């Protein structure tokens, strides 16, 4: 039996008929049509399906759509402002942190959650912050560098704030 729910995604309300077993990742990808959220494992192991829920990173492949009502859901499509990339996105492009790009949306959202709570993370904290996001292409080095550069851009870095 389908249930009618409303999901708030990237600031927009979507009225959706879902079954109680439907997973958030599938609803976002197939019903809402936002395919930027990726599915690498469907079992909560890879982080590709990461979205932000009230600012916290959540694995949408192990989250029920019905349980996501009343939350502010942010997907990768909701990060840039029109044509303008978010500084984290910009840094990923500039630093070469994107190869195949399949981990990228989840990685960027995990990075955003990290920088929102810790604007000036150490290298170790960055690594911890993305430890749940697997990437097989880059070896992570450029991803860590991109997040660190984004922190700087966002003005979170200590020296930036002093100035």
């Amino acid at each position, binding site marked *: 039996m389908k249930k009618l729910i409303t999901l708030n995604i990237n600031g927009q309300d979507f009225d959706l008929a879902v079954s109680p077993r439907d997973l958030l990742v599938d609803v976002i990808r197939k019903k809402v049509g936002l395919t*930027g959220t990726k*599915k690498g494992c469907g079992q909560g192991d890879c982080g590709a399906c990461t979205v932000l829920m009230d600012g916290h990173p959540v694995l949408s492949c192990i989250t029920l759509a019905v349980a996501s009502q009343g939350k502010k859901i942010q997907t990768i499509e909701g990060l840039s402002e029109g044509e303008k990339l978010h500084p984290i996105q910009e840094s990923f492009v500039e630093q*070469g942190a994107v190869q195949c*790009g399949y981990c990228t949306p989840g990685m960027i959202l995990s990075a955003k959650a990290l920088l929102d709570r810790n604007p000036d993370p150490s290298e170790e904290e960055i690594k911890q912050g993305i430890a749940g996001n697997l*990437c097989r292409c880059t*070896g*992570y080095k450029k991803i860590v560098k991109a997040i660190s550069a984004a922190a700087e851009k966002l003005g979170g870095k200590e020296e930036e704030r002093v100035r």
Partner: protein
Amino acid sequence: MKDFAVVGKSLPRVDAPAKVRGEALYTDDLLLPHMVYGKIKRSPHAHAVIKKIRYDKALELPGVLAVITGDDAPQAYGIVPQAPTEYALAVGKVRYAGEGVAAVAAVDEETAEEALERIEVEYEVLPAVFDPVEALERQDVVIHAKAKNNMMYEGKQEFGDVDKAMAEADFVLERSFKTSYVNHAFLEPHSALAHFEANGFLTVYSSTQIPHYLHRTLSLVLDLPMNKIRVSVPMVGGGFGGKGEVASSELCAALLAQRTGHPVKVTYERSEVFAQHKGRHPCVMTMKIGVSQDGTIQAIDFDNILDGGAYGGWGIVVLFYTAAMIHLPYQVPNARFRGRRVYTNKPTTGAMRGLGGVQPRFAMESMLEDIAKELGMSPYDLRLKNAVESGYTTKSNVYVPHSEFKKCLQTAVERSGYREKQGKLPLGKGIGLAGGYYISGTAYTLYMSYKPHSSALIRVDTEGGIILYTGATDIGQGSNTVLPMIAAEELGVRADDIHIVSGDTQLTPFDLGSFASRVTYGAGQAVRMAAQGINKQLYEVAAVELGVRADQLICREGKIYSQYEPGPVLDFMAAVAKYIDAKGPLSAMGHYSPPRKGMKGVQGANIGQSPTFGFSAQVTEVDVDLETGKVKVLKVTEAGDCGQPINPMSVEGQVEGSIVMGMGQALFEEIKVSPDGRLLNASLHDYKIPTAVDIPEIDSTIVDSYDPTAPFGAKESGEGPIQPVIPAIANAICDAIGVRFLELPITPEKILQALKEKKER
């Protein structure tokens, strides 16, 4: 360093903005009107005869459109077409647990899954075998009727006189090694979307590295002419060789689309990615190396048993690559190889980044280290002494036009302080060195053919601008960025002036695919030739306009002028407009065929032939926790010879990715198989790959290099750097705790066990 306008600049990837915005479309992101979903039913048994498949109950389920079984597509295929062993779905019997036996198309995935449960398969279970050495002995297990003793293929090569050289050598070392069962673990599961138009024309969108071979295989299995099929590759979420073979998802999608008249999409679950597999061949290797007192290598004798899993795949090619890999990057005057690729009842092994190289490299570089110690030499000096240089020809008749391998060794050693540290660090801390190399493409196609391996078309007009069409496929390695850079350099325009259309058998000219590190070198030559063709035509018109001889013109930053004296300048696009007004449309094609080198009369000696080679040396520092046995890789200092890097940032990305991938295989990656042949860790939870917290500090240097045979001097960079990773770690562990590990992965348990045994001794 040559003076380039575009080449050598670290430009961001052309597709990166779309990827960071989540707008890049991968196969599973695609939707077509009336599209339905396909799912595959898989065998629970590792080896069994299929007695009967009943699926009427599945067909009765509302929403189910079709069910197919192996009998619907009984044509065998294989990436090596001379020895086809595989089917879209199992025909007659299954040979590994997880093999597809039937497929369903239904209106949604849930219905398709429910339908799978309603399919009843009656099996007669057969005895099975999972170890290649055991498989050679087990007369009671016949995996393929044609393969006696389960041996798919035996290869033998001998160059020089190994017995004589061994007898005369001052020191001979023999050791046996074993490597593990490793999966590519790319992040995007296989996905294929197939669609028949009303006129019977088939289009398949797929996450593949090899649109051409998929094209051929679809034609074979569906019995359709190739010109009625189009393969188009959307964004690909990584391949590393795992998408370098046709997957049953692709064939099932096409067969179900044919059957239902609907577009059908088949996307794998992660467990199915492990069943499809085609990962690294586990190898049981015995290697013998003879040297003279001064460290000169005199002979290598190498015996390799490769665990092929259930089917043929790239097996025969991998077999002979392991043979080829002992001839470089050191001079080896005498070499012998015996290799057997053996069937077992496990998911099939195949091509994985640096195929055929990684396993023998682990053996050889581990042994060189020990030999150096035995001779009282620095392992570095020993390697330097034997390292090949430009212009070297191996005993197996492989010509190396260009090598800066010595520079790689020197750079890695100097930057890491290897000489000061090696053998001198406290217990538990160690440093290790290893070298490696890889091909930049192959000399031959997998089927007999003389056609160019790569081709490219450039079309220029005042409306669309400059459009580069290439069959080369960007699987995340960045060819859609690098090939336009090559075109831009030759044309004298900016890289972002060039639009690229790639990886489509209908829209783009022929290319073999993205494997064997062939794209930058081979497709790069084709692109460069096409660009030269444009210049030649364009300059003739520009010459008239400028009053300068055509052969004196060059173009830089979109301006055409005389390269010898200051004078009038003509805008590139203005010249294009003039050309088209006067002569009509402007386009040019380029192509590339590698030299067909080989060795007559020697089995498999064509394999390992490549137009040129990339090299890498690495120094790795580790910290071994003596209490827990855990190894932390602290730092990898890498120096690579990839010729002139077209895009250094991309090269660095290849190097860093290779190092971290290799580290996983060295220390923990291994698919585990239960006694009845089921995979025990077919998930990204249980099959661990490195995460961000595991990574070492990486110091990589692209050594100054330029290969005159290459497009703007560029060679491979995506597979060479993984070669030294494992032995460098093993050598560092040996330096840290004095134990030589002969089996991968080197887990904490193995380390603790070894430390215990060492104490007891």
